């Protein structure tokens, strides 16, 4: 028995691992089933749109993943079991084991669901406008880079509070709260400036708040849009994602890419400092 086995037992002898698997599998099944209904009603449903549906629905799985990882990282919430760990293993061993199990597990689940949806949608839906592999690979690369920020932020929020609930709430507040508050502030700003007629796709160029929010590292996740780029989108130079149109530009999320690369090590170091200096 070692820490790796312990974490795997923690995942698979409880609801945690199976629930995560269930959510990603469900996201894939739902994307295909909804696609079938839309295809029957309107026809010409493309496999790229099925993938967009999958990515939308799998956000629920991602939120569950956040909760599970953060609660696991908040191991000091139970002082006595924490003593068991801390007196036998180094902090580096404890944290690295958790991250090296949970983060790849979540990524594997996401991409397994993605591949499952690709296969099913290629069999069932319109494939006349094929996916562009080079863009898909670029999207996967940026998505993997964004994982660094998620991991660092989860580490940091887990290290701020000792309690599980407070840590999970703070993490969710950061991930959901920042975009929500940002969108509200953009709306207020555009109202105040009399620019409410601006189409949403232009908000991030017109609004000062929108421009600032582009530096929020989590915005790098918008690069998921590259996972569904099709041949016609390459020809038109525009991509459609979550009902919005963007200019197809490989550098369209370069600002959050920079802030991710800068902020992730800082957050990780701050978290490390807090973890190692915490008295229990």
């Amino acid at each position, binding site marked *: *028995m*070692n*820490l790796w*086995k*312990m974490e795997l*037992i*923690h995942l698979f*002898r*409880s609801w945690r691992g199976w629930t995560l698997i269930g959510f990603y599998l469900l996201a894939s099944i739902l994307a295909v089933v909804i696609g079938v209904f839309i295809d029957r009603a309107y026809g010409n449903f493309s496999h790229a749109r099925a993938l967009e549906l999958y990515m939308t629905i799998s956000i629920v799985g991602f939120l569950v993943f956040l909760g599970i990882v953060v609660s696991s990282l908040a191991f000091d919430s*139970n*002082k*006595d*079991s924490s*003593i*068991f760990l*801390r*007196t*036998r*293993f180094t902090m580096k061993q404890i944290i690295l084991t958790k991250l090296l199990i949970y983060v790849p597990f979540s990524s594997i689940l996401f991409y397994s669901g993605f591949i499952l949806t690709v296969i099913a949608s290629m069999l069932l839906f319109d494939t006349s406008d094929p996916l562009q592999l080079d863009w898909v690979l670029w999207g996967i690369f940026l998505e993997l880079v964004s994982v660094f920020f998620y991991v660092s932020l989860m580490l940091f929020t887990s290290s701020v509070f000792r309690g599980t609930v407070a840590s999970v709430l703070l993490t969710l507040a950061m991930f959901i709260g920042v975009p929500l508050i940002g969108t509200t502030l953009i709306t207020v700003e555009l109202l105040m400036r009399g620019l409410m007629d601006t189409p949403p796709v232009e908000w991030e160029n017109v609004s000062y708040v929108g421009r600032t929010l582009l530096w929020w590292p989590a915005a790098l996740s918008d690069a998921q849009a590259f996972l569904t780029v099709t041949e016609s989108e390459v020809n038109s130079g525009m991509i459609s994602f979550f009902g919005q149109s963007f200019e197809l530009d490989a550098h369209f999320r370069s600002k959050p890419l920079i802030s991710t690369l800068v902020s992730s090590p800082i957050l990780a170091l701050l978290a490390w400092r807090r973890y190692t200096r915490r*008295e*229990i």
Partner: protein
Amino acid sequence: MPPALVLKDLTKVFGKVHALDALNLTLEIGSIHGFVGPNGAGKTTMLSIVAGLKRKTSGDITFGIPFHQMMLMPDTPDFFPLLTAREVVDLARWPFRKEVDLDAVSKILEEVGLLDSADRQVGGFSRGMKQRLGLATALIGKPQLILLDEPCSALDPIGRREVLNTISQLRGKSTVLFSTHILSDVEDVCDSVTVVNDGKALYGGSVSGIPKSEGQSFEDAVLGLLLSKGNVE
């Protein structure tokens, strides 16, 4: 042979409260030392500082053994509820896996009276069973210094006797520092004792050397010491 542990003027301050106030302690190798005092006397704080779980405010700690050869059992040990008792002890063996083989897991579970429950998940264990399991996890690596924080507090009389016997058998093999407020336990198994109150040592020395009047028991002598110097009601 140098002592296993020497504490010199160890002090820990929480805000305005002196949890430990210039505490001195010397643990001879192979001895069993009792650390006695009422609730809030600073027993757990001292053990936590020695184990590296809390930082000292001032004072010196000198180990005569390698730091990794020390193990702490907290007063209310807790474990990951989905693991079985066998898995918990095996996990505790991991840092010592080169010196201790897998067979030792069953042996130590038998010693603490948990062999019948070895394959049960510990989430369903009573506090007493967790305390026995805590002792097993502390002993599995055969550490040279064992810190036990009130190891018998949740045990029934038979369990308490068994655990005290286990501790007694460690004499000469490991150095044991165990905190308790059950005075008879100290008299039964300890070679030396430190009596503390409000973070200050009131007495440090052999169990038999505690100042007492003729015919006075060890328990009465310790109570007398606490009442006279420690403001204990």
